[in-house]
């Protein structure tokens, strides 16, 4: 369990960012995104500053920008609304000459609104990706524990992350078993069989939960996860981790003052 259990967005490394305690990174990422969100949308240059700041963090963490860019496409479905805003908005309209005589008429507040959602959403995703790329699962749970997240939540999250691969693999095996017994998963007709498979998967997960509970009891479970590490986070680590946040704060203040 201790080795190899990594998540798909983790980029193995040993940079200073990787070595920073997870709770520092969670707090820094959260505060950084807060700075982005409070920045007025008209402060265009400031958003460029945030991007440079993130690029600096990637350089320190040795994350190739292309690696991040490919994964930031995850955002695409969330910004559907942004695409519609310029067409549905009201107020002063802007005309955008296209080919020949065709002119695209767009709403100005709509465009600004779309920009707002797009730029803040993108910076948010890039920040989250940076956090995920530099923080392995175990550290993240430890970080949540140190941030005084309710112990029940940390315990459930720990067990969930430990078993999610087991259950996902079970789902894949069930699908394989269905196919090898003549099931032809195509278009809508597969929904019935797949849903029954989901039902079976729930029963297996629940029964596995019962067995895991008994196994935990027999190994001395008393309702609390043992502390995963005794390492103490130093002030210096907090200071190092919060450096980018100070820059982000300065950028946010600049944006608030100038706009």
């Amino acid at each position, binding site marked *: 369990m201790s080795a190899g259990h990594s998540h798909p967005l983790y980029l193995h490394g040993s940079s200073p960012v990787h070595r920073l305690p997870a709770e520092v990174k969670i707090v820094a990422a959260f505060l950084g995104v807060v700075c982005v969100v409070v920045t007025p949308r008209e402060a265009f240059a400031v958003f460029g500053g945030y991007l440079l700041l993130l690029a600096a963090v990637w350089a320190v963490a040795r994350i190739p920008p292309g690696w991040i860019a490919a994964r930031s496409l995850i955002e695409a479905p969330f910004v559907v609304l942004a695409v519609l805003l310029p067409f*549905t908005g009201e107020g002063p309209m802007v005309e955008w000459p296209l080919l020949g005589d065709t002119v695209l008429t767009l709403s100005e507040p709509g465009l600004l609104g779309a920009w707002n959602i797009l730029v803040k959403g993108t910076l948010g995703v890039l920040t989250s990706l940076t956090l995920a790329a530099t923080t392995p699962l175990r550290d993240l749970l430890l970080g949540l524990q140190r941030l005084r997240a309710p112990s029940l939540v940390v315990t459930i999250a720990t067990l969930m992350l430990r078993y999610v691969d087991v259950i996902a693999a079970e789902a894949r095996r069930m699908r394989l078993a269905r196919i090898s017994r003549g099931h032809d998963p195509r278009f809508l007709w597969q929904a019935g069989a797949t849903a029954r498979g989901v039902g079976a998967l729930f029963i297996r997960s629940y029964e596995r939960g019962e067995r895991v509970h008994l196994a935990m009891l027999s190994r001395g479970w008393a309702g609390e996860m043992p502390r995963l590490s005794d390492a103490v986070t130093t002030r210096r680590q907090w200071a190092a981790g919060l450096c980018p946040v100070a820059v982000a704060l300065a950028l946010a203040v600049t944006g608030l003052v100038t706009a």
Partner: protein
Amino acid sequence: MVLAMHMSDGLVNPPTALAFGAIAVIGLAVASSRARRDLDDRTAPMAGLVTAFVFAVQMINFPILPGASGHLLGGAIVAMLVGPWVGSMCIAIVLVVQALLFADGGLTALGTSIVNMALVGVFVGYAVAFALRGLARRSRRGLIITAFVAGLVNVVVASLGFVLQYAIGGAGGADIGTVLTLMVGLHTLIGIGEGIITAATVGAIAASRPDLVYLLRRPGPPLDVRGRAVSGSTS
């Protein structure tokens, strides 16, 4: 298609995000204390495995149209199977982990997403199922209809939560009527799919392990321990 589930950063303004963050924390605190009552000392392992189930199920893609596929959100399923308290904890933890490890949904939008999906979605889905419990207990067909309606309502109500948050503190310039029509229209279609899968899944579980369906459970008579009487008769 999962707009209501994973809101991105900057979609609503900071005060709105903060207010819904506070609602999410309070709601989850209540849910976690009630979840302990539902599952006692089994809470952590059982909820952990049910959460892993939700996570795994969200990886299974169902076809919607050729080229487009969607996944189950699972709010109504967990509400009917493990009850609203454990269910909302499970969905909330899935959302937190997705935001922290998979960059799914913004960090500052976690509060709004948790309120929509884990609190409003799960509880309204359960309320619908609970209101129809007479029908659900009567026959298999009744249970399937109940599950379908709960799945549909769960998704539509979660999207309405988004519209409400957007109306309170939306950062875009879109007309609220347009957003409402768009979101509810889109999520009714998604909800029908969710409803069908929810119905088939709950139906399959009820066929083999009806005792695992929270909605079908009835408070039985308290266990009568007659240890003394037994030991008395044997001695």
